Every structure is written in structure tokens, then in C-alpha cells.
């Protein structure tokens, strides 16, 4: 075990995979000479050179498509979006090409590619820079979606993504880049579609992903003193999604709160609720509640921003509501 920061864990995984496999390269805005807008790729240009650490102009649709084309014919690109907000410009490449090529070629082509970058609200970055984009991408058959919330997952998921033969999307978080955590030694590669119980509890299950895990653990900790005992589950992988771990937990607790940063309308949170109510209807003592970002575009003002996305306080309120049902 070693302690690393989240951004270092991502970097270490990319570097190890680049050492392992000559076909792996990194492409994106400011990933090389600038050392990464958020310093995730720091030092990689010096280590691997300009052939494999490629600075692009601002042309997301262009370089995403170029990387997809290169992946079709045998390379294994890692594409960094400076933030996932800007992936919207490249959405068609991911939706209509990366996700579809295997299927529409009748299995002749595969697209082993990683798209990654920070996702969600940062700090007062306002309306156009605060999207939690996983909600769109998790709906697309043909891609896989990882949401690393811990440092160990950052490393293990990056390795899994690079080695997988499908397009894998990793949604990182600017507010997690500085997080410190333990990383196991050796070549640990994450499995797709495995949720993890991060805190055991008896009375209510909280299921979440990404940065919100920490708000949920905070709320569970606060409730430990006298309140209901919360079991906190980190979904980790939104596609494929392991709802069975949640169902097992709900069979024990009888109650479920789903917490996510993104908008309430549809998306992976609603998908999870749908699966759980079908498979654990008999075990539920209350309707499943969701604690989500507000159904609105993000305000710049700090107070309004804080009120727009869930925090420990709103998670607590949702837990109390589901308990008092």
C-alpha cells in the first residue's frame, strides 16, 4: 500500500499502461507542454515524448474522431477532455461512431479507446461549465462508464479502461484530484459492473457514485450518533451497472435513497430506482427517494451553486424523509 493523490493514481495507471503497451498514447488539450490543465498528465511528455503525449488544438470533435479512427485500426488512444463539458462538441463522435462501430460492422471492428477528464460542478464555474455529463453517456449501449470516487479506484479503473477493447468513459472530478488515499501495490485492474459497500449499516441504504460518495459518507457519519444506521454503496460503474449489490442491501434495510449530482430527470439514478423497485418490491418499506441536483442550470453565485447540488445536509434530509415514511 502507498498513499497517492487521485490525480497521481490516474497518471500512474496511464504511465504503467504506456510502458506495457506501445499502442497506448494520450491526446488532448494542454496534456503535454502545459502538463495538463489539472496536472493529471504532469511529466508524461518528458517521459514518453511528443509521439505519445500529443497536444491538440481546441478541436474536440476532430481529435475525438481521429482517436476513434486510430483505435479502429489498432491503436489504443486515451483522449483527455479538458473537462467533460467540452465533450458535448464531440458527442456525435462518441454516440454515432465510437459506440456504434462494433455493432454496425457486424463485429468486424472494435474501438479500444478511453475518454476521460473532470466532470461535474467545480467551484462557481457557472452555467456552461458545471455539467455532470455521465447522465447522457451512461444511456448509450456500446460504451462503458466508470465513476472513480476513491484513489484506489482511480488507478484500477484507468488500467481496466485502457485494457478493455471497448470505448470506456472515465468521469473524474476536479474536486477529487487532490484527494489522498491508499493504492494497493501490484497490477490491480478494476472489474466493470461491480458496486461496493463503502459503509455497512442496518436501517437505510444510500446508493451513489463519484464525488457524491463523500457527501453520503459524511451524512452517514453524522447520523451514526443516534440517527438511523446507513449502508452506503458506491456504484462505481454506471454501465454496466451492478444493481444487485443494492438489491441485497435493500433486502436488509428496506429503504433506499439514491444520491447523485446530476439533474433528476432520467439518467442512471432513475435507472437504478427502476431496477430496484422491480427486484426488491417486496422488501421495500418506503418508496425509493432520490436526492439529486436541482432541475435547473447552474448559477454562478456561490450560495445558489451550493443549493443546486446535494451535500451532506440534503442527503440527511432525504434519509430522514425515507425513514419517516
Amino acid at each position: 500500500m502507498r498513499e497517492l493523490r487521485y490525480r497521481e493514481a490516474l497518471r500512474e495507471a496511464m504511465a504503467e499502461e504506456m510502458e506495457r503497451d506501445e499502442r497506448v498514447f494520450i491526446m488532448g488539450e494542454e496534456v503535454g507542454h502545459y502538463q495538463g490543465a489539472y496536472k493529471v498528465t504532469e511529466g508524461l511528455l518528458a517521459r514518453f515524448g511528443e509521439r505519445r503525449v500529443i497536444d491538440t488544438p481546441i478541436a474536440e470533435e476532430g481529435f475525438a474522431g481521429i482517436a476513434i479512427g486510430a483505435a479502429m485500426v489498432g491503436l489504443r488512444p486515451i483522449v483527455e477532455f479538458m473537462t467533460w463539458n467540452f465533450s458535448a462538441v464531440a458527442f456525435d463522435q462518441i454516440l454515432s461512431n465510437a459506440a456504434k462501430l462494433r455493432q454496425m460492422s457486424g463485429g468486424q471492428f472494435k474501438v479500444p479507446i478511453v475518454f476521460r477528464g473532470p466532470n461535474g460542478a467545480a467551484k462557481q464555474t457557472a452555467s456552461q461549465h458545471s455539467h455532470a455529463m455521465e447522465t447522457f453517456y451512461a444511456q448509450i449501449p456500446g460504451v462503458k462508464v466508470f465513476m472513480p470516487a476513491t484513489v484506489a479506484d482511480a488507478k484500477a479503473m484507468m488500467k481496466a479502461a485502457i485494457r478493455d477493447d471497448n470505448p470506456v468513459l472515465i468521469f473524474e472530478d476536479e474536486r477529487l484530484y487532490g484527494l489522498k488515499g491508499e493504492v494497493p501495490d501490484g497490477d490491480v485492474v478494476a472489474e466493470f459492473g461491480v458496486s461496493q459497500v463503502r459503509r455497512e449499516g442496518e436501517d437505510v441504504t444510500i446508493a451513489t457514485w463519484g464525488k457524491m460518495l463523500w457527501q453520503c459518507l459524511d451524512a452517514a457519519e453524522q447520523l451514526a450518533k443516534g440517527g438511523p444506521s446507513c449502508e452506503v454503496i458506491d456504484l462505481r460503474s454506471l454501465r454496466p451497472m451492478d444493481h444487485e449489490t443494492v438489491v441485497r442491501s435493500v433486502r436488509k434495510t428496506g429503504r433506499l435513497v439514491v444520491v447523485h449530482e446530476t439533474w433528476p430527470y432520467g439518467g442512471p439514478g432513475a435507472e437504478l430506482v427502476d431496477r430496484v423497485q422491480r427486484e426488491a418490491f417486496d422488501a421495500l418499506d418506503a418508496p425509493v427517494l432520490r436526492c439529486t441536483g436541482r432541475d435547473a442550470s447552474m448559477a454562478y453565485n456561490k450560495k445558489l451553486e451550493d443549493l443546486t447540488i446535494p451535500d451532506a445536509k440534503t442527503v440527511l434530509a432525504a434519509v430522514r424523509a425515507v425513514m419517516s415514511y
Partner: protein
Amino acid sequence: MQDDRELLLGLYRQMVLIRRFEEASAKAYSQGKIGGFLHLYIGQEGCAVGALAALEAKDYVVTTYRDHAQALIRGTSARACMAELFGKVTGCSKGLGGSMHFFDADNHMLGGYGIVGGHVPIAAGAAFASKYRGDGGVAVCFFGEGSATIGAFSEALALAALWKLPIVFICENNEYSMGTPLSRSLSVADVSQKALAVGMERDAFSCGDVLAVRDRVAVAVKRAREQSLPTLIEARTYRYRGHSMSDPGKYRTPDEIEERKKSDPILNAETQLRAMGVSDAELEKINASVEAEVEDCVRFAEESAEPDESLIEAFNYA
């Protein structure tokens, strides 16, 4: 000559206001009173001030996240601008937009946009509306050279040329898109060359002389207004600060920055004004009035109220 003197005095004041306003905002940012991203225009003032001097009130302006200057020039009060940076409800976007999203419908400032290049078609849309209505209005769109590699930019150019829209595209080429120098972002040295492929008129010049900028942009505005034809301009300029407040700007040498400061638009304007017979006392007076205006707007921003929670949802639909 008298006309030029009065005009230049006005443009000089605008440039000084932008600079002092942004210096005050940088200070407030470092004190934690402003959050998010803050992109400063310092060094580039000659571009927007010169260009917008060629416009009429009915014309439209669209720009990037580096938008403080355009709003101030169009007539948004320093108070409304500073209050926006402070996230206050008295701000030009009610504290909802912040630094990157200054809007002022009354002054036809159609906004600052955060997605590189995404606003270029929006500007063409405003030009389309003017042509549709036949009101003689012109749209001016500012963007960095970083936009020139974005699809929305190419598509907007193609359509503006095809449909003969009354628009002036102004590429503010400040030599860097974030940390990337021109040599690593563009395959051509001059962004105005992009006009050739769509058969559009073009021009290229630098922004050290604000009156010259006004004159060159006026030619393109006239072409738009009278012939309904678009123009692509590359306006060479330079930003003295980092890309945003969080960028230390290590990719440039202090020597390079000092060299570029020699063609500072404000210093140039002072030299020209003196040559026109403007006294030090007159310049002093302008500077003092700008300083008072900036102090006032900071005080106003500090004292203003925050937006109410109800504003989270209030404007998501009309």
C-alpha cells in the same frame, strides 16, 4: 482633427476604465470575493474599444468568456459588471452568469460564452435576424484564435458567406490559446486566411493603435451594413496576464511580455493625445474619474444583495 481628439479621448477613457476595472477585479479575486474563472483582457483593450467604436446602438455584440471589456464599452455600467463578478443580484446577469457570462439586452450585448467557438454561429444568427428584418443592423463576433479550429466556427463562416450575412468576425489573436502558442494550434500563420475557403472578405492588423483599429473595422462594418457581406478579421493582440487567474503563464518569458508591452494601446493613445495637444492635467482628470468610478463599483458590488434562492429556477424557462 478636433473630432479625432474628442473620439480618442473617449476611447482612451474606455481603455483605462477596462484596465482599472480588471485590476480591481483581480484584487477582489485574490481576496476571495470573486470565484470561478476570471479571464482578464488587460493588454487587449485596443481591440474591443477600437472595434466597437465603429458600431451603432442597434448593432449586436457577441464574445467569449473574456467579456468584461465588451460589456463596459457597450454601456453596461461598471457597477453592474463588478456586481456580476461578485455574484450579486444587481449584476448584469443577476449574479447567475459570473465573469464568463455578461449579458446586457438593452445594450445589444448578446453575451459572453464559455464553450470555445460555440458562440460564433450565435452571432451569425443575430446578423441573420437583422437581415431578415431589414433593419440595417450588423453583428460583431469576437473570439480567440482557439476558436478557429472548432467546427462551429467553420460552419458559421460557411453559412455567413453563403447567405451574405451582415457580420464582422473578429479573431482576437493574442498568440496563445491557454498555454498553447500559435505554432502548435494553427497550420496557417494568419487566421484571416480561413476566409479564403468560403470566399469571404478579410483583413488583418494589430491592435496597438485604437484609432486605426476603429478605421479598419469601420470598413468591414460598412460592407456588412451597406452590402450585407461578412468579413473575417484577424486582430493581433497580446494578453499580459495568464489565460485566467489560475494560470501562472509559465509558457512565456518575462522578456516576451515586456517586449509586447511596448505596443500597449493605452500608452500609445497617451502619446497620440499628447501630440494632439492634450495636457497632462486633462489625462490626469480622466484617470482620476476612472479611479473614482472603479472604487464606486467595488463598493456597490460589496454592498449589493445576493440573489435569492428562488432565482435558481426562476429563469430556466420564459
